[in-house]
């Protein structure tokens, strides 16, 4: 029907983003570029520029640094996964970091009061859901734009965190909470887990293909099928082997992957997730087919609240303390929104994936880490982060279908 004209670069980009693996490409390229620059280009440059240097020092790409990078990015990634869910709806949440701060502070106070760590964790997760859902109720039923509600939430929750932590800082020594970031999975278990995951993915893909054949549906080409499995396998094994080379896979990373897998599954493979995409793509359409758009909005904000609480627990566990600047008062919020957007989730709703948010968090984390290592100032870091974010949003805007480009 349509003329088969050669595609313009923008058109190519758009088509690339439509495919399943294609949506990973821009963020992976960004990650590769940053790693190449800080990991290889910069050390080589220093080596050749300095007569006294005896050997090249690949600090950035050392297993130790990569390990730290994963750990540093974990909190950002958890929040970014949550924020992705509301971005899919076409909404935004500015209060995620403040929610995480309140939850972490509450966790600290609870364990100090002698409540067992796991109970405290469950309580703050419930509190996080309530905080998110409360904002969702205002957005869906009162009809206030999410930007305004969550901006109010950001301010209010920052204040609330200061009320809970008058000193602005609290050490956490509860063994359960600390264990989340401290426990390392033995090397062999890490590898076993990775192998199991890859085998499971391959088996699922093959079974799906067989079912498709049985039902007479169009089949994926063998290249696509095995390409997906190989892609997945490379990422999993590279991550596990790198972390094993320094220490081992931390429990924190496994928990993060598990949480992301659950949220990813809910958003892509359940009627609820489908309704999130439908509302983000065309809310009127979702309403006409009988979806309860308001309830979906509230649920999505509840999910952000839950993930913010989990992010707060992860943060408290990793730092061993809760401080105002580490959560509500710092750059965590903008970094996690940035991570979601850099990952390729559209600010306009309906397009994106929680897995991309993890990669986006790695981009943000790598940038900060690399600039730190090369001795850049805080000012440079801010400016670089801004540039990367702008680039990501520009790619998003260019790759949107032309039809609904005006809004």
């Amino acid at each position: 029907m349509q003329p088969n004209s050669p595609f313009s670069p923008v058109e190519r980009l758009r088509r690339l983003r439509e495919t399943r693996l294609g949506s990973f490409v821009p963020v992976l390229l960004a990650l590769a570029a940053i790693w190449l620059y800080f990991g290889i280009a910069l050390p080589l440059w220093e080596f050749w520029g300095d007569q006294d240097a005896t050997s090249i020092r690949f600090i950035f790409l050392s297993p130790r640094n990569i390990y730290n990078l994963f750990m540093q990015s974990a909190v950002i990634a958890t929040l970014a996964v949550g924020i992705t869910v509301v971005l899919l709806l076409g909404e935004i949440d500015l209060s995620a970091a403040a929610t995480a701060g309140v939850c972490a502070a509450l966790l600290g106070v609870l364990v100090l009061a002698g409540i067992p760590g796991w109970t405290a964790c469950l309580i703050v997760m419930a509190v996080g859901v309530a905080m998110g859902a409360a904002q969702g109720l205002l957005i869906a039923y009162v009809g206030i734009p999410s930007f305004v509600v969550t901006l109010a939430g950001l301010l209010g929750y920052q204040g609330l965190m200061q009320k809970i932590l008058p000193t602005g800082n609290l050490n956490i020594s509860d063994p359960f909470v600390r264990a989340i970031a401290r426990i390392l999975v033995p090397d062999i278990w890490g590898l076993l887990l990775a192998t199991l995951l890859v085998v499971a993915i391959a088996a699922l893909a093959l079974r799906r293909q067989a079912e498709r054949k049985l039902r007479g549906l169009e089949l994926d080409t063998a290249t696509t099928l095995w390409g997906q499995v190989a892609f997945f396998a490379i990422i999993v094994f590279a991550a596990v082997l790198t972390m094993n080379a320094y220490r081992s896979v931390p429990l924190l990373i496994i928990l993060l992957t598990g949480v992301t897998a659950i949220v990813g599954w809910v958003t892509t493979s359940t009627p609820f997730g489908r309704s999130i995409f439908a509302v983000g793509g065309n809310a009127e359409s979702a309403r006409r087919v009988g979806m309860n758009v308001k309830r979906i909005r509230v649920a999505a904000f509840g999910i952000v609240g839950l993930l913010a609480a989990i992010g707060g627990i992860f943060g408290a566990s990793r730092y061993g303390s809760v401080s105002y600047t580490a959560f509500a008062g710092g750059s965590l919020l903008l970094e996690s929104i940035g991570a979601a957007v850099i990952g390729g989730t559209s600010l306009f709703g309906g397009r994106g994936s929680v897995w991309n948010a993890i990669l986006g968090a790695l981009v943000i984390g790598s940038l900060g880490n690399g600039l730190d290592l090369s001795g850049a100032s805080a000012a440079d870091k801010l400016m670089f982060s801004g540039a990367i974010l702008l680039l990501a949003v520009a790619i998003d805007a260019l790759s949107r279908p032309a039809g609904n480009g005006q809004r």
Partner: protein
Amino acid sequence: MSLENNKQVGPAAPPPRLRVAGIEKRFGGVHALKGVDFEVARGEVMALVGDNGAGKSTLMKILAGALTSDEGDFFIDEKPVAISNPHDAGALGIQIVYQDLALCENLDVAANLSLGAEPVKSGWQFLPRILRPLDDLEMEVRAQTAIDRLQVRTLKSVRAKVGGLSGGQRQAIAIARAVGAECSVVMLDEPTAALGVAQTRQVLDVVKRLRDTDHAVVYISHNMRDIFEVSDRICILRHGANVATWKTSETTADEIVVAMTAGLDNGANNAA
């Protein structure tokens, strides 16, 4: 009812699938519909024409349950029914395809066709329905069946994103979504308004397929050529009232335009 019956319209025609009588609707001081009668039978395309503001869209929305009429009677197969909301209309097998189509461009064809009624895999009863795994293969099978039934040949894959499809294909998918549910009356609002020649052709073919599969089709349009190609009868509204209902084969475009704009003095030739 078979194709032969399409020719027998007028007083001798088969009983209509959907009939309404004496529909009144006021919006504040505006008297939008003044006792309108309308009917459509299975296996028939009934065109609904009228100038802007004649009440076509209002009538259609009342039939779809999106608006409630102030007065008037509804009959399905000559049995009185009540239509007060879209759910009623859907339960009676009345579906409407709005001009804006309301498709989710970020989802693929299969997802759009089962939107709101996604099939889920069995065996996950411990989860609430909205959290059970989607049976996306079943979804694709259903979509393929719906597309095949309407013979949309240009559509290559039900896994294509709607955002990348042509206007005619989108219209066809919107129609397929409406027809997919238990549906006997399909109302199409200006389905070819924004389309080129080839795309229009495609949509008209889909409309003919609907008639051939024994649906009652209501077709709103301004385009006389499309109407004369596809419709069996034409119902003309003017200033919120019936002007006439004519058999398409017994009238001309000029006659219709005159009736639409200037009205009609005598009700001769009336096929309703």
